[in-house]
């Protein structure tokens, strides 16, 4: 097997390992399809036509490049730093998820698959998948936990409007993890004609590698844009981390620059007790979940623990294997932000910049608020605004009642 096209730092190697993390831990029935997918991706990577078509779709369909917006009033609120927002919220469908969905549906077509399945947590990946399936005229089924369907009713409606079937998943914690289990069971059963369009840098090899490559467009654009705007590279990058695809997408192109600090922000939820958060590096340990070896929230018997986050997109007990490698090497620093701080950031960015962030992205904004005192006046920062918050307004309205909002208005 030829070695994977290694990234500048972490690979993966030919077995799909990032410094030991990752790999391919799946039932035998899926090994053939994963080998087929890996081969199709290797062929595609070497095919200029594939890149050309993806690039065309990025420009003409997804709305790329997305702007890099200076956040002056937000920076003034912090009092220091030159802060830019990478506006993935402005892509078609409203989150970075479309980048990966477009890449994978091109692959699915190359492999001759006619049916697309996917899991979704916040619904953004489900919407992106339903969208590209509609664009390519493919049958589409999306697995979604019933708890997430309740939290993200608007996205459920959007997926159905786009022609996808939304399959409610009522097992386990009824969130993203359980939706992935169910999607894997579907894939095991229907491998012949079905492509599993996994939405993050999770799962078995080649997904973490392939999804990272599709998302790396975020960082490539950001590099060009910041150089054009400021004539220099940033000093700090901040992104939220669920599975970790928006974070790795922003970080990847900058990893080779030693002077740039990077912070991944996990969901701190309600607090540090197991089951109350999704901070894998703080509360987790090495384990194997859904095909990959990484940091996992689990009990002492190796059973996967429940998680909680106000944000459905971060509510997952494992983290992408490349993040595990970046964590152990110290290249990226990981931290966590609690629900209430994320809600505060959600509100603050809306008022200072006229941008309603997704609750996921609000975790990255909150981390920057906390770091404010550490910044210098000219510290150049890019925050990945991975998605827009329209999908979250109902849920947030339930939590912060209207009176509360009025009472706090400036």
């Amino acid at each position: 097997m030829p070695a994977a096209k290694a990234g500048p730092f972490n690979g993966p190697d030919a077995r799909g390992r990032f410094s030991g993390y990752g790999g391919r831990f799946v039932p035998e029935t899926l090994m053939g399809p994963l080998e087929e997918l890996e081969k199709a991706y290797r062929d595609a990577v070497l095919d200029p036509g594939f890149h050309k078509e993806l690039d065309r779709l990025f420009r003409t369909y997804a709305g790329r490049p997305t702007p890099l917006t200076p956040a002056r009033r937000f920076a003034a609120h912090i009092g220091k730093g030159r802060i830019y927002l990478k506006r993935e919220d402005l892509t078609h469908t409203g989150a970075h998820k479309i980048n990966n969905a477009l890449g994978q549906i091109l692959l699915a077509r190359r492999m001759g698959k006619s049916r697309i399945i996917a899991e979704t947590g916040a619904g953004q990946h489900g919407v992106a998948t339903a969208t590209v399936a509609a664009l390519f005229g493919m049958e589409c089924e999306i697995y979604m936990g019933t708890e997430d369907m309740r939290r993200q009713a608007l996205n459920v409606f959007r997926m159905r409007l786009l022609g996808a079937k939304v399959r409610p998943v009522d097992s386990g914690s009824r969130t993203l993890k359980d939706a992935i289990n169910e999607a894997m069971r579907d894939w095991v059963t229907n491998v012949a004609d079905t492509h599993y369009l996994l939405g993050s840098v999770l799962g078995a090899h080649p997904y973490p590698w392939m999804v990272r490559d599709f998302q790396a467009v975020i960082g490539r654009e950001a590099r060009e844009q910041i150089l054009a705007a400021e004539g220099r590279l940033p000093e700090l990058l901040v992104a939220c981390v669920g599975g970790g695809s928006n974070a790795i997408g922003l970080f990847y192109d900058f990893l080779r620059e030693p002077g740039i600090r990077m912070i991944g922000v996990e969901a701190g939820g309600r607090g540090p007790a197991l089951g109350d958060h999704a901070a894998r590096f703080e509360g987790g340990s090495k384990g194997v979940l859904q095909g990959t070896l990484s940091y996992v929230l689990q009990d002492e018997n190796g059973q996967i623990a429940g998680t909680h986050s106000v944000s459905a997109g971060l509510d997952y007990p494992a983290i992408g294997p490349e993040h595990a490698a970046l964590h152990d090497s110290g290249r990226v620093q990981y931290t966590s932000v609690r629900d209430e701080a994320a809600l505060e950031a959600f509100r603050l960015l809306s008022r200072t910049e006229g941008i309603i962030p997704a609750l996921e992205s609000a975790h990255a904004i909150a981390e920057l608020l906390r770091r404010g005192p550490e910044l210098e006046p000219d510290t150049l920062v890019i925050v990945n605004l991975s998605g827009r918050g329209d999908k979250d307004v109902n849920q947030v309205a339930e939590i912060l009642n209207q009176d509360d909002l009025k009472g706090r208005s400036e």
Partner: protein
Amino acid sequence: MERAQKMNKRANTRFAMERAQKMNKRANTRFAPTECEAHMPRRIGEKFRVLKAGGGKAFIPFIMAGDPDLESTVRLVPELERAGSHIVELGIPFSDPVADGPTIQRAGARALRHGYAMKDYLKAVERIRRQTGVPLLLFSYYNPIYRYGLEALARDARQAGADGVLVTDITPEEGEEYCACLERNGLDPVFLAAPTSSAERIEKIAACSRGFVYVVSRTGVTGAQQELSGAVRPTVERVRRHTELPVAVGFGISHPDQVRAVWQVCEGAVVGSAIVGAMEKVRDPSRLLPEVGEFCGWLTGKKNSHL
């Protein structure tokens, strides 16, 4: 330097595979145990050998340990043997069983509610072993085993009296250390072969398996089916090209006709969801053992009626 290490590793893997193939051949062609096996009986291979000599086929039921509780499991296994089982597959539950359909998911969830630790399951194996010599194959997912520690698990499972291990999300590619640990402790690694497995993969699977090769009857998760998949015979035949090990077929087998059909193409039939489903229907706990026994008798064609 790194490349040299990689090449070494690759050479070692190949060596291990060749050795495993040789050992497979040996296990099948010589009836007397080898020296290293002399003090460690390989009950699974021995059971298939005895069955073959008598023209019989293996009936291999699956139950989830801890469903409805471990006390029942300890009493059920000897009952399964009395009812005509030759090997028993004992599930160790995992919170996220991606290879299992709803019936076995429910059984796992019932067991997990007790909060048993791995050592509780191993203690149950030990108690079962005191009552019966039926070969026991532990059936689980990687994470609970990884968490317990591969070497510790292999040692403790063997000491408790287990004979083999099947981990659904471990394939030969990720199984190097796992196989070595089992091998060192005299446990048989059993791997799955699927209709989607390429010839190259089947060769690897056959080379790494001991005891028998478990052929998955169809693509999909566990669960009772009306019809036996047409993929069974070709997959079994493809496995036979690479090994002389016995072959057993599982996934979806739920009726005596299917058991008989499987026995016509290979050495063993595994029934899981149908038995677990029958257990779910038993309302009176005191009737659990006789009803499961009767159901197994029906499956193997020894009794006419079932639940």
